[in-house]
């Protein structure tokens, strides 16, 4: 952990050119992307985010960092006016009928079965072909 976060500072020390030219970079780019991946695999997500900040400053043109920037960036959360409908009747349907639909995806709305299919993809195809009045609740019955 400490090593991973400290290492970039060690390897990326750049020497200033005494003639005032641009600083020289390392001969090989530091493997920030690999290190970030390793931190993620160890569940050190905050450390991965911090290292990504350092990496983005040091090697902003590294295309491999763009993916990590996308998936590690904290979500921007917005309030949504969309509300779900009351599902009490749908839950009651599940209590009473689940045993008859084992292995199926079912779509429920206002306590009624509006579609069923063996896969979510097929269920969505049925719903897209004949959209219900509101979004149903899709549940896979184990």
């Amino acid at each position, binding site marked *: 952990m400490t090593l991973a976060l400290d290492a970039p500072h060690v390897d990326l020390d750049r020497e200033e050119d005494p003639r005032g030219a641009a600083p020289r970079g390392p001969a090989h780019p530091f493997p920030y992307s690999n290190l970030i991946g390793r931190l993620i*695999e160890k569940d050190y*997500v905050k450390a991965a985010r911090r290292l990504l900040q350092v990496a983005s400053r040091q090697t902003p043109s590294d295309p491999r960092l763009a993916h990590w920037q996308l*998936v*590690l960036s904290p979500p921007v959360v917005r309030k949504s006016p969309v509300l779900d409908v009351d599902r009490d009747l749908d839950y009651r349907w599940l209590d009473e009928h689940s045993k008859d639909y084992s292995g199926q995806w079912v779509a429920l709305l206002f306590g009624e079965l509006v579609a069923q299919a063996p896969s979510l993809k097929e269920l*969505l195809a049925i719903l897209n072909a004949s959209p219900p009045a509101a979004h149903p609740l899709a549940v896979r019955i184990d």
Partner: protein
Amino acid sequence: MEPTAKIFVRVNIGHLGTNVLAQVDTGAPWSILSQDFIQALDLLSVADRSVTLSTRLGLLRGGLIKLPVTLLADGGRSLAFEGTFFVSPDWTVSQSFLGYSGLLDAIRFAVDPAVNHFYFGGIG
């Protein structure tokens, strides 16, 4: 419907034309999608296999992707955001999970088990 001690919330993932139930798992570092979602959203074509994560099925290779999520309320306000999900062709559990990083860590939430309510809101 669910006789075991699990917390399910209603979400819309990927702007699908239907809402679904997903299990809240604060102990999971990442959210993870079932194969049904992967196929319905054709996610394997966009997810790389750049990370190996420890899961209840052991070490699985897969990719992290962002997907639009609406955490659905039936009172107050729902929340919409882009959550990060782990996608692996080797994840065979039929359930989808909402994990901590890039999803639950972006909101405030609380559970009232006595009345089976899940409260949530934005941070700040």
